[in-house]
């Protein structure tokens, strides 16, 4: 294993240091390295963050390898500064057995771009009818701790209650995709002034908020851990804030796209803006940013959802929901949260690495940079600016909603377990 | 505006009135009176000229001379050379064109294509007994076998020169000028 020294880099504290990496760990973290290293990397102008952890990634394998594979998805993750991703369960077949979750983790290991944790389905085939083998997945080699029917809501109250209770035995968490199905039959976009004008079936905020309200009460009742995926409305933020004030063990995530993009973009009818939950109003965006700043929303998760071109090059209603986001997440967070003064870099490290790892029980990930810690490191230059070009995304699918938007920042170097996955903005061949 | 090339005024206020009066007399003479006449002007300026001619003929013959407007836009063969043009209302006086001697009136006779379109447009309206053509200026360069029955002034021009007719109803002044070729 080669050794590396990153010079002239700033920690989130603002302290300028040199970071020495050898044997998979951080050997040194001081203003002047005492040992010698084989490779010297320039970190000037950059901030060193603990490797980012994404609690919500759709890698699409097995089943939709035309959209993304574990290999291509984790490579995109590495490019975005991630050293760990949680692969969502809505694959084909669904990740509802030990076999599938182990396969996903093994593929991740073979790819070697970042660590892959598998999310297990809550119900068999995501059908919401009977509980998947949660224990088998938890005790498998994949060590599943996060369970989610994401893409679908565990809408049956009794099923949700049982799942919340059951995962407690292995310290698991249920990550809820909060969407009342009856209120959102054929829903196409946020219900409000824009949907009224465009004649697209409305997706009311209450469809999300009602489920979150129910679930925090259920979590409180059975004293379990609940995580809310992709919070998208101001009302949801209020409910979670209230739940936390009552001591309910709930965590929540927000996606980069919900922090930046509003539903008036749908006026183009371009399905690159079609996503579940839908883009909301600018008031919602403001509330989400405040929620992330004050800790009501714990983390940023990408909900990276690749789709091949043909699933988006059609009428709005016929198009698939979802956007890719791994490669642009940190830049969007800088634009919406750091450049606006809402978060410090230390808080970014918390929201994008430390806390997501904690929620997902991702051992060896999300550890603040310190001597002896695993060398999962993202070196990020916040001073660079770049207009997003869809075709330049290395994800297998190019369905980014940020095309044409000028985003700040650029990931310069990434280390995963001591090995570089990116050096000087170039992916390192593996 | 007109780099180096002079703008030459070829007809002035009085000249146009005189030309119209002469045309009016010729129309009466040729048709042995003004009975059965219908003057149809081609927008924009032809329409005003038709109204003036009708008035002059009417004052000579002491009777109302019916006149109207014939929009030719939908029959033009050069529609694709420019953005779509607004239609001008076609106004046909009560009584229509059937059995009438229709005198088409336009400001400038050039390629003849406008008149070709006017004849087609007139065909939509009905079947006159006879169609004649009166123009204020004939500047030559015909591309179709069309000639005017009444001409205010023959004006030899080169094909790329621009003949601009102004009439007081919309241009505040009666005059005809020839402008250099490169002007737009």
């Amino acid at each position, binding site marked *: 294993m080669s050794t590396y020294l990153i010079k002239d880099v700033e920690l989130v504290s603002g302290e300028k240091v040199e970071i020495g990496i050898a044997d998979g760990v951080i050997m040194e973290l001081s203003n002047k390295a005492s040992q010698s290293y084989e490779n010297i990397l320039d970190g000037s102008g950059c901030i060193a963050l603990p490797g980012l952890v994404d609690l919500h990634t759709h890698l699409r394998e097995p089943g939709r390898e035309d959209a993304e594979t574990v290999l291509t998805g984790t490579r995109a993750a590495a490019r975005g500064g991630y050293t760990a991703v949680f692969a969502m369960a809505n694959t084909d077949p669904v990740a509802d057995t030990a076999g599938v979750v182990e396969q996903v983790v093994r593929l991740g290991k073979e790819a070697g771009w970042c660590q892959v944790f598998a999310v297990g389905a809550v119900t068999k085939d995501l059908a919401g009818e009977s509980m998947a083998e949660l224990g088998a997945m938890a005790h498998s080699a994949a060590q599943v701790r996060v369970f989610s029917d994401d893409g679908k809501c565990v809408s049956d109250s009794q099923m949700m209650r049982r799942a919340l209770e059951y995962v407690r035995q292995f310290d698991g968490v249920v990550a809820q995709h909060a969407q009342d199905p009856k209120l959102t039959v054929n829903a196409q976009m946020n219900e409000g002034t824009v949907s009224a004008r465009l004649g697209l079936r409305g997706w009311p905020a209450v469809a999300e908020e009602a489920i979150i309200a129910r679930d925090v009460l259920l979590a409180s009742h059975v004293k379990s851990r609940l995580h809310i995926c992709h919070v998208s409305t101001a009302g949801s933020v209020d409910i979670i804030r209230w739940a936390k004030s009552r001591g309910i063990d709930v965590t929540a995530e927000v996606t980069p796209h919900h922090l930046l993009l509003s539903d008036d973009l749908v006026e183009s009818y371009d399905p690159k803006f079609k996503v579940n939950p839908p883009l909301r109003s600018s008031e919602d965006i403001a509330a989400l940013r405040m929620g992330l700043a004050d800790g009501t929303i714990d983390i940023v998760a990408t909900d990276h959802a690749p789709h091949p071109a043909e699933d988006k090059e059609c*009428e709005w209603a016929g198009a698939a929901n979802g956007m890719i986001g791994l490669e642009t997440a940190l830049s969007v967070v800088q634009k919406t949260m750091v450049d606006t003064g809402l978060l410090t870099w230390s808080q970014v490290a918390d929201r994008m690495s430390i806390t997501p790892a904690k929620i997902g029980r991702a051992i060896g990930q999300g550890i603040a940079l310190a001597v002896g810690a695993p060398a999962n490191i993202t070196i990020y230059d916040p001073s660079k600016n770049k207009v997003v070009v869809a075709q330049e995304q290395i994800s297998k699918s190019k369905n980014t909603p940020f095309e044409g938007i000028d985003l700040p920042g650029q990931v310069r170097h990434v280390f995963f377990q001591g090995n570089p996955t990116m050096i000087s903005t170039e992916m390192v061949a593996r | 505006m007109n780099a180096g090339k002079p703008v030459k005024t070829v007809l002035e206020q009085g000249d146009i009135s005189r030309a119209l009066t002469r045309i009016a007399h010729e129309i009466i003479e040729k048709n042995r009176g003004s009975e059965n006449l219908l003057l149809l002007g081609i927008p924009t300026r032809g329409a005003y000229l038709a109204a003036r001619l009708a008035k002059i003929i009417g004052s000579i013959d002491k009777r109302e001379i019916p006149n109207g407007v014939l929009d030719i836009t939908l029959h033009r063969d050069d529609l694709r050379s420019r953005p*779509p043009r607004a239609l001008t209302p076609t106004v046909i006086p009560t009584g229509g064109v059937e059995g009438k001697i229709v005198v088409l009136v336009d400001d400038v006779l050039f390629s003849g294509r406008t008149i070709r379109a006017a004849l087609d447009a007139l065909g939509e309206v009905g079947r006159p007994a006879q169609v004649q053509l009166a123009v204020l200026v004939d500047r030559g360069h015909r591309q179709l076998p069309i000639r005017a029955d009444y001409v205010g002034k023959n004006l030899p021009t080169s094909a790329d020169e621009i003949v601009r007719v102004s009439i007081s109803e919309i241009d505040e002044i009666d005059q005809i000028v020839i402008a250099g070729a490169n002007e737009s």
Partner: protein
Amino acid sequence: MSLEVVTELPRHLLSIGDLNHDQALLILDTAEELAKISDAPIKKLPTLRGRTIVNLFYEDSTRTRISFEAAAKRLSADVINFSAKGSSVSKGESLKDTALTLQAMGADAVVLRHPESGAANRLAGWTNGVVINAGDGTHEHPTQALLDAFTIRRHLGSVGSDLKGKHISIVGDVLHSRVARSNVLLLNLLGAKVTLVAPPTLIPVGVESWPVEVSYAIDEVLPEVDAVMMLRVQSERMQNSFFPSTREYSRLFGLNLDRMNLLQKGALILHPGPMNRGLEISAECADGVQSVILEQVANGVSVRMAVLYLLLGGNIGVGS
């Protein structure tokens, strides 16, 4: 020397929202001229000779298709009717592929009827030709609104003028109505006051951003208006609990003889068709002296001729 159009239309007609006041008036005034010609014994004009117009219909609508076809043919355009009803929209690709095929065939304009909102906007992004929205999902139906305004103006206004000061009510399933959306925009553009009347379940959330008033009481609105436009109500809406029964709907929101008597003398009754007689409108109202429903159909051809002429009659819209 000839009069140039100062007002040009946008390249496509996708939404009334793309038009300004002068453009809307230009269409109505042009339609008025063309209506005169349509009344003449010879009904064919050479204007669009050599142009190819495709009627691409993903939904059955004989009435709209025939109207566009008649308009195109009166202007001597070549018309290709392409019925794609039942083609899969879920798999997506079909509309784009069809667009590319039509372009390869040299279509100068595509008249699109589609069950999904925004389909015309999407099509416009995939073709060089002109796209005319002939109804997309629950979004818009611009030529319907134009012919409605044209019909209203013929009775209550005059050529060259707008509908300033007129009060028009739109009654019925506004939520699912593309006709209502286009009409609200156009009537407002032309200076009219619009009152929507419907049960709250059939009024979209977000209506407060529309330039309209909303009422749930038809009897209070009818005496105030210069025209009332009844929208088609589909009985399927009953299954989704938008209202309890067609009988209750009809009792609360249908136009019947008693209600017709509330209208001012000279107030107009419109309906975009096809009508559910006995549901949203009774036969006496549909066939009564105040009804201009048949005129709407006739005027449709003139208005569509105007749209085709203004979009295709010049140097714009030529496939590159």
